[in-house]
């Protein structure tokens, strides 16, 4: 009988976990629905004319114009068009890109690899450099190295990514020709090689934010009562630091999750500069062209990824902090 106790506790905890997850996912679905409506409205209201985009600056016959208006239901009321799209999307049909005359899923599938690889590479670079620098900065607060790291972060934060991208190209593709100047590469290894400079351009800004967040979090923990108490107990400096770092993990992970969502937006600029076929450039071209099926699908995909990252970050608190675990799972 006594053995049953923890089992029933565990099953209760997992039930709570499943319920929490289910509520969060339901929330995500509502948000996605709202985003889909907002995006549709914004693209609909934005200046520009799909007919002119398709026909270009040249004379056109009234039949061709009527044909296009009919084909893309441009004369239907706004809500009818949105609901048509929504109904199809709910059945998994995201339609055909007006600009590319290719199914939206194919258009996304051919580009998603580049963008995912670029975002992950940039994230790994940013985290691998910024977190250790942030910790070092905090540990050496006020010293010369702290000031140097902070200045570096300021530089990364204030340099616009397109300017940084051009600078990187000039230095590492032109003056010291190590990396290629543009394009996506022919095979996986070549692609990775092509992604290094774009990833650095993308990582600089977000790495700087992460460095600042890490520094602030570690600094706060180093000045906390717990650390003072640990020191008073005579623990070694290494052990004290371990305690501080463990407590600082939650804000750092939150920061890391946040910057991962920034990366997705940053790909638009970087992909254009490096002529990389990815989702960022696809989204940009599609917004300008008023290619609603693609804009809707890419926006929702990005929103869903951000939502999943946020949930994963929240779940990580359970693993990282026993206090959160106890509080959340015993409600």
């Amino acid at each position, binding site marked *: 009988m006594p053995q049953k106790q923890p089992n029933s506790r565990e099953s209760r905890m997992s039930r709570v976990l499943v319920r929490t997850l289910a509520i969060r996912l339901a929330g995500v679905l509502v948000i996605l629905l709202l985003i889909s409506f907002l995006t549709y409205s914004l693209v609909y209201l934005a*200046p520009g004319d799909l007919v002119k985009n398709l026909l*270009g600056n040249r004379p056109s016959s009234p039949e*061709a114009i009527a044909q296009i208006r009919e084909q893309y239901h441009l004369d239907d009321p706004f809500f009818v068009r949105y609901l048509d799209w929504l109904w199809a999307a709910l059945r998994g049909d995201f339609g055909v890109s007006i600009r590319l005359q290719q199914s939206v899923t194919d258009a996304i599938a051919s580009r998603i690899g580049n963008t995912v690889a670029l975002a992950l590479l940039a994230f790994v670079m940013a985290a691998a450099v910024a977190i250790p620098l942030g910790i070092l900065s905090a540990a050496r607060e006020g010293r010369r190295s702290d000031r140097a790291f902070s200045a570096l972060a300021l530089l990364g934060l204030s340099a616009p990514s397109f300017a940084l991208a051009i600078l990187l190209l000039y230095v590492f593709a032109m003056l010291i020709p190590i990396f290629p100047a543009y394009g996506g590469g022919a095979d996986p290894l070549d692609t990775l090689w092509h992604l290094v400079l774009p990833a650095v351009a993308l990582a600089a800004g977000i790495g700087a934010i992460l460095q600042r967040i890490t520094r602030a979090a570690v600094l706060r923990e180093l000045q906390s009562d717990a650390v003072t108490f640990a020191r008073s107990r005579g623990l070694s400096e290494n052990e004290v630091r371990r305690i501080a770092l463990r407590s600082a993990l939650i804000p750092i992970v939150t920061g890391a999750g946040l910057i991962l969502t920034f990366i997705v937006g940053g790909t638009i600029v970087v992909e254009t500069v490096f002529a990389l076929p990815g989702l960022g450039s696809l989204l940009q071209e599609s917004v300008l062209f008023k290619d609603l099926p693609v804009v809707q699908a890419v926006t929702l995909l990005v929103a869903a990824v951000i939502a999943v990252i946020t949930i994963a970050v929240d779940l990580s608190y359970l693993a990282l902090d026993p206090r959160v675990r106890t509080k959340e799972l015993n409600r």
Partner: protein
Amino acid sequence: MSRSSTRPRTRRALAAALATAAALVLSACAGGPKAPTELTDSGKEIDSLTVAFPGSLSNLYIGQESGILNYYLASTVQEGLVGVDAAGKFVPALADTWETPDPTTYVFHLRDDAKFQNGDAVAPEDVVFSLEQAADAKASPSTSYYLSSLESAEATGDREVTIKTTKPDAAFLSNLSSAGALVVTQQKYWEEHQGKVGTADSLLLGTGPYRVTEFQPDSHVTLERVDTWWGELPKTKQIRVDFIPDENTRLLAAQKGDVDVAFNVPINQAQQWEKIGGGRIQSVNDLSYVGLLFDQKVKPFDDPDVRAAIAASFDRTAVAEKLLRGYGEVATSIMTPESLGKAYDGDAARELLAQVPQHEFDLDKAKQLLEQSGAGGFTAELTYPNTGPQLGIAAQALAENLKQVGVTLTVREIPIEEWLATIGDGEHGLSFMWYFSTTGDPAEINGYLVGPDNPNHFESTEAASLLDAAGAAADPKDRIAKLLELEKLSADNTVNAPLWWGKTIMYFSNEVGVHEFSPYTFLGPWGTQLYAAEAAE
């Protein structure tokens, strides 16, 4: 174009001479700090060339997307019944001969060795089918307008196609070239892809010297030479067209040596491109027209005096020579001199076009016209597309001049997609018109800007009848005479204010030569015009 490929064997010797001549001309154009490079055809083959386009193509079929870059790409992959040579004159393409037994009938004889890139012979039915698709508003929204006078197309023999038009239309033959509206493809291929051709999945099938082997929008198109073309085998085995939208990246890629040929070098970067070691820039009039458009539905642009005042406030000479650094020629009319090529050479054409009444730069006159109109010191906006920074420079110059006559002009850059929607929208009274003619037909641009349903909302039965008369004229000179009357009508009423005829600037690595560099070169099978160059001794 491509005279050397029309009769290849007899032209080989001439090609080498032309190459040297072209190289001399280009070195004269290039200027800059480098010593002029004299190039000659080494006769060697080129394994692969990288060509940079300044923007991506979304679809390769010109009936679906018809930007100037689409035409450049399609021209070396697909052919029409006729082609256009370096001087703008018709030459055989898929048809080796044709007759016009009456002004509304055309009989074409297909060449016996015409083959698609998959090896199948071209049947007259394929030509008829391609033409019908090109004229269909649903299948080909971009080209259908140009074939609106098509009445019927029929296969009338093993190698014969007969095409009839609803009325005599002098521009019709131009539209049967790949620079116009007709790119012949195979009916079987079209049906296999349910008409969705030119996409990343279906690619493109034509009869030209290169076939498309790969297409990734926002990335690249790969072309491979074929031995199915009726002309001489091109020297370059593979052409990879990379889409590099950022102008700085494009320049860096060329400086690094990654790019062999670049289209549409921006005017503001021309000097930097000129300095690239081992390369050169060449420029040529590109059949484009830039002018001011006045929407007569919008006040105060309904007043001819206001329009004339604005036209007189634009200093065309200063803009063309200084701001455009000579990469633009003062336009005296909407028609370009090159579009008169079927009847007049360049000098004669320029002389004729200068006879059209001009709005000379005169701020005193502009002030007087504004007072006369009673419009007073009004405010207007002039937008320009982000892809045409030179239009922005010209707009700023105009705004400065207008300030002196009491008109406030705000200048704003907008994305090209947004700009397209402003043309003739009934809200923007003053706009730019920036038009790339592909056919080089003299009525292509002025028909659009002065004829029926023009974006200026200028209504004139006289303009319509002049265009009809021009369309019915059998002799090119008579036709041009009618079109000059149309230009006069436009100028007298200041319907449009022509500003400059554009030039395209291209970059070539010195390892690549181009036999004939003319406004029409890249609107024909240009892959055959490129050769492996070496410095002449």
